Each structure stands twice: as C-alpha cells, then as structure tokens.
C-alpha cells in the first residue's frame, strides 16, 4: 500500500487544486508533473510484482535454479513521442500486454526501435505479422525528444484474455540471416 500513496497524494493535490490545464501558475504546473510522475514510478514496483505473480507464479531462474522474485517489467512512458530507451537499446526483448477489461480485447502495439528487421513470436511460438513504420519527420525534431528511434515496430496483440496477458518474444535480425517462416506481408 505504501507504494500507492505517492500517486494517491499526487492525485489528491491535483484534484483539490483543480489541476485543469492552465489554471495554475507555470511552476505549479511543473510541480504537478513532478509529483505525478514520481507517483507513477513508485507504482511500477507494485505492477511488476503483481504482473509477475500471474505471468510466472512459481518461476525459477533458468540458469541459477532459484526462485526469481519479480520479472523486472518496465513501461515506456514516452512512447507517445516515440521514445523508449529499453526497446531502442535492446536487440531482443519481451513485450507483455495486460488487458484490464473483463472481456478479451486486441491491441495494436507500437514500440520505437532503431532497427528495421524484427521477428516476433507469440506465446505459442507462431511468428506474428509485423510492420516497420517510420516515425513522422515532424516528431523527430520536437524540442526535448532524446531518442535514436526513427521507426516504430507495429504488431497486433490478438485476443488478450480478460484481466490477463500475452507475452511476445521480439528479436532483431540483420537482413542476411532471415529466420525461417517469416510470412510475406501483403504489400
């Protein structure tokens, strides 16, 4: 519960002081952004622990054969300006999509990447249709964006179970070692 309080307090302050865009001085608006982002960051521990419980309830480390407390899940808060250090600096990574609704949903996932060839495997090991889409040129030059990504990797996470998740295994590859079974995308 302690980890939630930072966000609770931030929301309480903002709702009490009607943090409606602009009806507070600039330095106050900046402080709202600070306390809100700190609150969200503190929640990452709880979300990672909770998600690990359902993703790998009794997971043992493959290499060291000992219990692994929590998978270090993280999020990409700046994905809205196509910036995410994790997916830009790792060739291989896992994307886990969690569905908070009480019915299955599908979601198009977009992550900023630096390469332009990736394979994605769904939980059953089937290769997922992917697409590399350029980041809009005008976004590359907005003030404050610190990112190497000029592309986004787009794929559809299909039928994520209610209050459940699906994980996808992403690997970057160079053009000459194209893994088998890559479906030819419809041009």
């Amino acid at each position, binding site marked *: 519960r302690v980890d939630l309080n930072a966000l609770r307090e931030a929301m309480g302050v903002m709702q009490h002081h009607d943090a409606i865009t602009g*009806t*507070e001085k600039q330095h106050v608006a900046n402080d709202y952004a600070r306390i809100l982002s700190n609150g969200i960051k503190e929640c990452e521990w709880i*979300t990672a622990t909770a998600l690990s419980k359902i993703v790998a309830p009794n997971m043992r480390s*493959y290499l060291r054969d000992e219990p692994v407390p929590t998978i270090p899940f993280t999020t990409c808060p700046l994905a809205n300006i196509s910036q995410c250090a994790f997916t830009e600096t790792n060739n291989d990574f896992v994307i886990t999509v969690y569905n908070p609704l009480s019915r299955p949903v599908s*979601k*198009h996932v977009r992550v900023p990447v630096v390469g332009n060839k990736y394979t994605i495997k769904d939980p059953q090991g089937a290769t997922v249709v992917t697409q590399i*889409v350029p980041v*809009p*040129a005008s976004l590359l030059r907005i003030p404050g964006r610190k990112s190497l990504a000029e592309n986004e990797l787009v794929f559809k*996470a299909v039928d994520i179970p209610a209050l459940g998740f699906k994980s996808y295994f992403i690997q970057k590859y160079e053009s000459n070692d194209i893994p088998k079974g890559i479906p030819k995308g419809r041009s």
Partner: protein
Amino acid sequence: IDESPNTEFDIDPDTGMITEISINGHSINFTQDFLYYQGYVGDNEKFINRSSGAYIFRPYGDPFKVATKASFKVTRGPVVTEVHQTFNDWISQVIRVYEEENVIEFNWLVGPIPIDDVHGKEIITRYKTSIKSNATFYTDSNGRETLTRIRNFRPTWNLKLEEPVSGNYYPVTTKIAIKDDDLELAVLTDRAQGGSSLKDGEIELMIHRNCLHDDAFGVGEALNETAFGKGLVARGSHYVILGSSKDSNPNGYTTASQVHDQIQQKLLSAWTFVSGTENLSFDQYK
C-alpha cells in the same frame, strides 16, 4: 453485403487533404482542417473586455485556416496504412487505419505555437461532413451519460447568446457525435477537450492553445506553457467512427455499441510492458 467492409479514406493527391471516408460500408464526403482562433485581449474591466485565458475561451473573430494544402507521405503494410501529413512548421498529422479495424485515427502533433501577435492562438481541428445534423450534437458527460446539445439553445431558459462560439462549446471527455436519419459520425478523444458543432455536419475540437494575456480570474499569469525553453508541443489522437444511425452495420453491431466499445478500449487501454530476454532463446524463455 460485405460483412467486413474495408475502412478507407481518400487523399486528394494535389492538396494532400482528406476528401472522403468509408467505414462500416458507409461512405461520405469528409474533410478535416486545422484552424486557429485568436484569443481576445482586453483590460478585463468589464465582461465584454475579458481576455481569453486559462479559465475562459473568448475568441476574437473567425478562425484562420492553418493551411489549405499539406505535403504527405504514404506508408502501407500488412498491419497498418498511414498517411503522414505536414501542414507547416508546427502542425502535422498521421491519418492511420489498422487492418480489420473499423475506425480511422487522426494522430495530430501541434507546437511550438508561434507567437507573432498579442492574441495568442487557440488551435482546433474541424471535421466536415454532409450529415444533416439539424443544429444538434451529442457530447458525453464525464465519460458516461450522453447529453444532447442544440446550437444557440439551453434546455432550461430562453437563451440570448452573447458569445456565439464559446457559448456553443461543451466539455468533451471521450465523445462528440452528430447524426441524421441515416448516418452517425462520432469523434472519440484520448483526453478531455472542448468541442462543438457550429454548423450542421461539422465537429470541431480544441487541441492546443496559448493565450498571451491573463484573464484576471486569479491565476495572474498568461497561459503560455513552455518546455525545454520552447512552446509546449502537444500530441494526441482522435478516433473517427461512421455508421448507420438506425440499423446495425454489416458487421452486426450498431454504431452506438461500436462507439462504446472503442471508448472502453481506448480509455482502459491494454497496458504494454517490456522486459529483457535474459539472453535466453524463445524456447528456453518459454
């Protein structure tokens, strides 16, 4: 009847602007423009001289169209088709359709807003259709009940409207829609915005603004937010849905139910996490 008709939009190759959309088997003429209102600047002494600011929206005259043309690039593929439009140095947009989805996304990017006069700029996006909406439009109340809005009218008193534009603006938490006997068009927002339908068949939403003169309601500061030493840049999305206003669409769903479903999926969106593979192969990791 094609049960899953394509979702399409047309771009005029000469202007780079959208001219038609086709969703749920229904096609209509459809244009989208960015415009900006100049904010009124006054001495705040009397109401008639109140400046447009953080607490109030008081446009000064008719809005200016940002551009009548846009340069554009097309990206097509098996998952998504996108058109990247550039209108000027500070406004661009991606119009996007995902495979098997019956919604068109307008992903707009606005800012830093240039400051070249005393008024400031209050930027709107305006969607124009041939729907005969009869001065009526619909907005949600805090993401729940849908309220009927009638232009230049109030349900509980005889209105004498002093502010013809802002007097017809309403809060849009998730949805603003118009309809006639045949068709319904809904625009879903990704955040709360102000919006209206000032002419039949049209929907406008305010997506960014800066005002250069305090409105004397207490904040004591002009609404001119900066980040990294420059004017703030805002990026967000609108989701346009078109369908029948009286029957189910070819996919068996009514337009209202699709709108409700899309709102829920956008506002309680599935959450994306990333983590490392710990240098394991797929089979080891699995």
